[in-house]
């Protein structure tokens, strides 16, 4: 096993299996993203938020994506669970229509304009929903790069 603190799978040759170090956190991955999204269809977009669905189990962020030819196209990106965000003080007012974001992820297998938002960042490069808003959740372990902006 590698010496990294991450509970990782052996070696980098394992194409599919990713044992995430997130096994220690109480929130489980909801479902197999690998079955829903296509690893051979990476997408990377910038766009403007049109609507956010703050639903369990996953937040859906709807964007008007900027295409190269200057037009926009409607896309929806699947992100994480809203409860964690709500406990940190974010609300539906935290991501309003009109906000510019950058997304990279993987498109749905059926080819529709849906993707998982693997990384969603604001136009200035900071991660969306980093840290906490307002009073946050006092009991949480504040992890760098997740709950605070400091990298490890």
């Amino acid at each position, binding site marked *: 096993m590698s010496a990294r603190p991450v509970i990782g799978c052996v070696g980098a040759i394992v194409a599919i299996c990713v044992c995430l170090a997130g096994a220690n956190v109480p929130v489980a991955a909801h479902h197999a993203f690998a079955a829903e999204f296509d690893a051979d269809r990476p997408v990377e977009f910038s766009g403007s938020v049109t609507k956010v669905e*703050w639903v369990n189990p996953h937040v859906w962020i709807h964007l008007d994506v900027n295409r190269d030819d200057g037009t926009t196209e409607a896309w929806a990106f699947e992100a994480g669970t809203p409860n964690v965000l709500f406990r940190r003080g974010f609300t*539906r007012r935290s991501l309003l229509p009109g906000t510019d974001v950058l997304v990279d992820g993987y498109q749905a297998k*059926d080819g529709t304009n849906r993707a998982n938002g693997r990384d969603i960042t604001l136009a200035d490069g900071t991660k969306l929903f980093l840290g906490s808003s307002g009073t946050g959740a006092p009991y949480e372990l504040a992890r760098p790069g997740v709950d605070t902006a400091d990298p490890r």
Partner: protein
Amino acid sequence: MMGHWFRGSTVVTAVTAATVGAVISVAVAGIAGQDRDQPTRPAQTPDGRPNFNGVWQTVNEAHWDLEAHEALPGMVMQDGVYDYEYAKVPAAPVVALGAAAGVPGSLGVVQGDGRIPYTEEALRIKEDNAENWIDRDPELKCYLPGIPRAMYMPYPFQIVQGTDKIHMTFGFSNAARVIHLDDVDLPPDYTYMGHSVGRWEGDTLVVDVTEFNGRTWFDRAGNFHSEALRLTERFTPMTADAIWYEVTVTDPETFTEPWTIAMPLYRRLDPNATVLDYPCIEFAEEFMYGHLRREQLVQRWEGETMIVEITRKVPPGDRLHEWYRR
């Protein structure tokens, strides 16, 4: 002299405190001594409010249609031999259920002239909803039914009357609502079941409900509302076992003026009254996802058995269907 005063009052204090203590402990002992299956409830709580604790259920036809209507032959209907509105017949989704598939009649629960005051545009949407009930009613997907619908669905619910909250747990889909009697923040996003804030006005519990997401219906007749919905509910005891339940509905985006419904809520008096789950998330899976199975469960039947083909008409804007229709 000071000593005298203290001694006398100490005795009086002790007697009074003991009396107060005795009253409390008698009340507790009273509960413990009864038949467990048939508890006797005081009509009032110790702080002098009506006692709403227990299992309750509405007994009327409001969940079919809030407005007055005569009995209908089928939950889903089609034109019969005649062209008349009153001569429709049950349609394919329910025809096999025979007389069990109809809709009972009702004098309606809408106060005033009995009609829900839709705007012109909203009325067209309502009629469209009614026409396409089987494809659009969120109840069929076991979605949270919202308020006031959960209060008059044909399933029992538990009222737990706490010190600063009143909690209602519904048998349908494990839905629940919390009525806050104290100060709380608004929820972070709009909700299905609304955000309820209550206060007592004498014997009446008055509840303001807001923060709806606009995705629920009022009944199975397509009566609907928008995100702008606001309710004022009034719960007034009629007897120890019946509550007069009144709701004033305000939604300027859907209705031209506020309107009110009213009905009794009845306490379930059966021994061991218990709210059992109606766990329809499982029940609705075939309905919602059956068409995505590798092998369909519902095959064509032959011979004496009915051959039924139902074409589902996807409502526009229903993302679940737009993305996954196959």
